[in-house]
């Protein structure tokens, strides 16, 4: 029935797991990402616990810019879930609007981050300066790379990828739901990064 190389249970749930293979796969990927960022968070805890002279983040980092980025990213999560919702209620134009907004907000996040990094570099503050800046640049940098990855995937789904809506709307809706899961995870990481690095 299914041709070789075809991925099954991609537009309808698997009878055993109850979810599509795409969704199960994406959650497994998110599990691996939790281990990735979790490793960095535990590194941060160990470095800080072993370093009595650790600076207060809010004295060295730009809290207003980071708070703005938090608002931007949370809003992009709302527009992302609305993009999926638009497909669930069968509206492609609404999907495109919300996906477009999500991508714009993601770019805005990177622009703000660019200003933040720029101000640091202007004062000759680089990752090699000390342990605090090393972990700050590493964690926010890795997170930033994940934002870039999300933008690439979302751009694909907004432009060439949306053609799938005409041939297999269930699979396309599933793709956007999975893209949403990834994007919400990126938001989740920032929700923890912001207080840990900037406020504590």
């Amino acid at each position, binding site marked *: 029935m299914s041709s070789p190389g075809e991925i099954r249970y991609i537009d309808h749930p698997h009878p055993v797991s*109850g979810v599509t293979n795409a*969704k199960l796969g994406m959650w497994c990927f998110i599990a691996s990402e939790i281990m990735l960022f979790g490793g960095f968070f*535990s590194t941060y805890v160990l470095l800080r616990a072993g370093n009595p002279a650790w600076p207060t983040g809010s004295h060295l980092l730009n809290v207003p810019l980071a*708070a703005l980025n938090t608002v931007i990213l949370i809003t992009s999560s709302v527009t992302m879930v609305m993009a999926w*919702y638009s497909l*669930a209620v069968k509206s492609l134009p609404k999907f495109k609007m919300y996906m477009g907004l999500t991508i714009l907000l993601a770019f805005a996040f990177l622009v703000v981050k660019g200003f933040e990094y720029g101000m640091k570099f202007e004062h000759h503050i680089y990752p090699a300066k000390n342990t605090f800046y090393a972990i700050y640049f590493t964690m926010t940098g890795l997170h930033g790379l994940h934002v870039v990855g999300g933008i690439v995937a979302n751009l694909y789904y907004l432009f060439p990828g949306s053609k799938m809506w005409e041939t297999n709307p269930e699979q396309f809706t599933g793709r956007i739901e999975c893209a949403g899961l990834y994007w919400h995870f990126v938001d989740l990481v920032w*929700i923890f990064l912001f*207080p*840990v690095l900037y406020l504590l």
Partner: protein
Amino acid sequence: MSHSEAELKNQVKIYISVFVALMFLTMVTVAASYLDLSPLATIAVALLIASIKAGLVACYFMHLISERTIIYAVLGLTAFFFLVLLLSPVYSV
């Protein structure tokens, strides 16, 4: 993911409510950082608020509140191994 018509209609209200809650909690996070608490209390408060925000994103934006057992199983396993990751440098042989 298949939702019924009735379930879908409610979704937008839920998303907006969660968004408002997240904005409010973000303000609380920043405000709480100005309180002069002991280091342990500061960390506890910051992580508590972050966990609530994360819980809201996970439950409602990621639809975890109405997800299937297998996804809970994957996440439960992840949580266990994350704890192992966190604690293994502390308790290394």
